[in-house]
């Protein structure tokens, strides 16, 4: 029991919770808005970690599921987009409440993930990475081809009245609630026997198969869970920003997700939370201020982020979380594993 009180983890979590809940009281409105977005981004980083870090399958099309969730909720809220197209019949469907529609965004993304997973994950090796790499391009092409419905390059607005909350503070708390629910859900999934089977599949497929784990089933399950949270966060993004458009879900976002998870540490859950927080704020806050350099040198914020990613991946492929854990264990006098 005394072990429990001395556990620094509980202390850190409580402090972070208090800080997060109190933040809107003393931070300016624009920051509150940005940090709320960062929470949604963290959901993307940890859900990507489930399939890549925990199950070892490289998914390069995570943003597609973000986009599927986003357009699902947007079209459910604005069914008039279907008017005059070949899907005219859908124009009259009643609008579900915003939270149901966000949930449906996650479910549709999970379903698409299931279909793609069943086709590509039964093959060993690299097919999954290759197919998921092609998906974003096709998805964006889709949006352009049926621009009557999807709004093409500009996207469309879902209307102010369908925002998550009327002001930034309200949106902040809803986004915070979503990220906490996602973290807790994933924490319990990954600590359960399902999570251990994911790791068994990652570490040694043949061994996992020989002890009776249906590797295809668990790969697909992992992909479905990962896609569900991506779709959920994507749908929440729409109601946070009130607009939906392809620029939200393109390749730079994919790289940002990868960067957050890799810098934090793949397969650690806490690492990508930390990485997501740092990377998203960095990208949207102080990296904006250095954009003046690009007038002189061919460098902009993206070039810097890609360079950081390459350096971290080569020099510290286990991410910063492993160093933090090492440090904490040393301080608290535990055996270093």
């Amino acid at each position: 029991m005394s072990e429990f009180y001395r556990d620094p983890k509980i202390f850190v979590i409580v402090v972070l919770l208090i800080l997060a809940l109190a933040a809107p009281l003393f931070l300016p409105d624009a920051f509150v808005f940005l940090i709320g977005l960062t929470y949604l981004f963290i959901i993307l980083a940890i859900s990507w970690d489930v399939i890549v870090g925990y199950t070892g399958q490289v998914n390069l099309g995570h943003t597609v599921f973000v986009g599927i969730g986003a357009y699902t909720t947007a079209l459910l809220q604005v069914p008039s987009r279907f008017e005059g197209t070949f899907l005219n019949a859908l124009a009259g469907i009643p609008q579900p409440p915003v939270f149901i529609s966000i949930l449906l965004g996650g479910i549709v993304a999970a379903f698409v993930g299931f279909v793609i997973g069943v086709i590509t994950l039964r093959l060993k090796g690299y097919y999954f990475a290759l197919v998921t790499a092609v998906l974003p391009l096709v998805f964006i092409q889709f949006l352009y081809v049926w621009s009557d419905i999807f709004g093409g390059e500009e996207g469309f607005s879902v209307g102010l009245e369908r925002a998550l909350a009327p002001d930034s503070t309200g949106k902040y708390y809803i986004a915070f609630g979503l990220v906490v629910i996602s973290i807790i859900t994933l924490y319990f999934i990954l600590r359960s026997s399902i999570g251990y089977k994911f790791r068994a599949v990652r570490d040694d497929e043949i061994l996992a198969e020989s002890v009776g784990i249906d590797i295809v089933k668990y790969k697909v399950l992992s992909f479905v869970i990962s896609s569900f949270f991506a779709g959920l966060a994507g749908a929440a993004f729409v109601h946070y920003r009130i607009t939906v458009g392809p620029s939200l879900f393109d390749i730079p976002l994919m790289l940002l997700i990868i960067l957050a998870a890799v810098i934090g540490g793949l397969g650690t859950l806490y690492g990508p939370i930390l990485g997501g927080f740092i990377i998203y704020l960095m990208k949207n806050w102080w990296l904006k201020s250095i954009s003046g350099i690009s007038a002189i040198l061919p460098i902009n914020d993206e070039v810097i982020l890609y360079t950081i990613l390459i350096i971290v991946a080569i020099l510290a492929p286990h991410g910063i979380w492993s160093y933090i854990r090492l440090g904490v264990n040393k301080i608290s006098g535990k055996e270093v594993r």
Partner: protein
Amino acid sequence: MIEIVLRILIYGAVLSGIWALTASGFSLIFGIARILNFAHGTFFVLSAYLSILLIKNLGFNIFISYAVSVILVGLVGVVIYKIMMAPIREHEVMVIIVTLAFALLVGEVLLLIFGEHGISVPSFARGFVEIAGVPITWKRISVFIAAIVVIILLEYFINRTRTGKMISAASQNLEAAMIVGMDVERLFVITMFISAALAAFGGLLYAQVFAASPIFAFKSLIFAFAIVILGGLGSVRGSIIASFIVGYILTITINTLGARWGEFMVLVTIIGILIVRPTGLFGVEE
């Protein structure tokens, strides 16, 4: 009607020849080192930009500048391999991530320097010839011939020369190749050079007929994926045959439905193959 058929036949052949070079390069390095090089498309566009620099800024002759840029890109490939791939080769997730990050890095820098508009490079030949009433430029014909010549040289190199045979032996069984005393690391470096040079040459041919742009690096990579999946991962001959199939699918789609359906058809093709024949036409079960 006959005009359209003939145009599709010839344009398809040109495109297929270019893709055959690019995809077989991608396949070669995967076959021997199990490296999925996401920067392969970058080598494709990099050579076009390099040769334009050499011709416009340094006044090089066209052929010399092409030769120099192919060799330079090949060396870039070797350097990238030494710095970014070799140290983390065991960690396959990281190899994909690092090469993808490198590809996007180069793409972004090219975008900042040259802008988003595509560039074309001077062609080997001018004028046109009429084939059954359809005017075909010598440009396309010379590109096709150049592609075929390089493919034949590649086949000769792999099947007839000592180094080529060592590469294909190591691709079949890396451990056995090490046991019989091959310097596998040296083979990796040689293969990386050839792989990058093939992409570079493919890019130069492509930029003669069409235009290369920073964004096209990613598209060309995706076409290479489609071809390699169809042909079977790691099989060079499979890649060459598959590139003609994908090349014609693309040409027919673009000429009938329009250019924006190109990528969509490629994905449908990939998914179709994976359902019907998961290991591709010539792939081996892993």
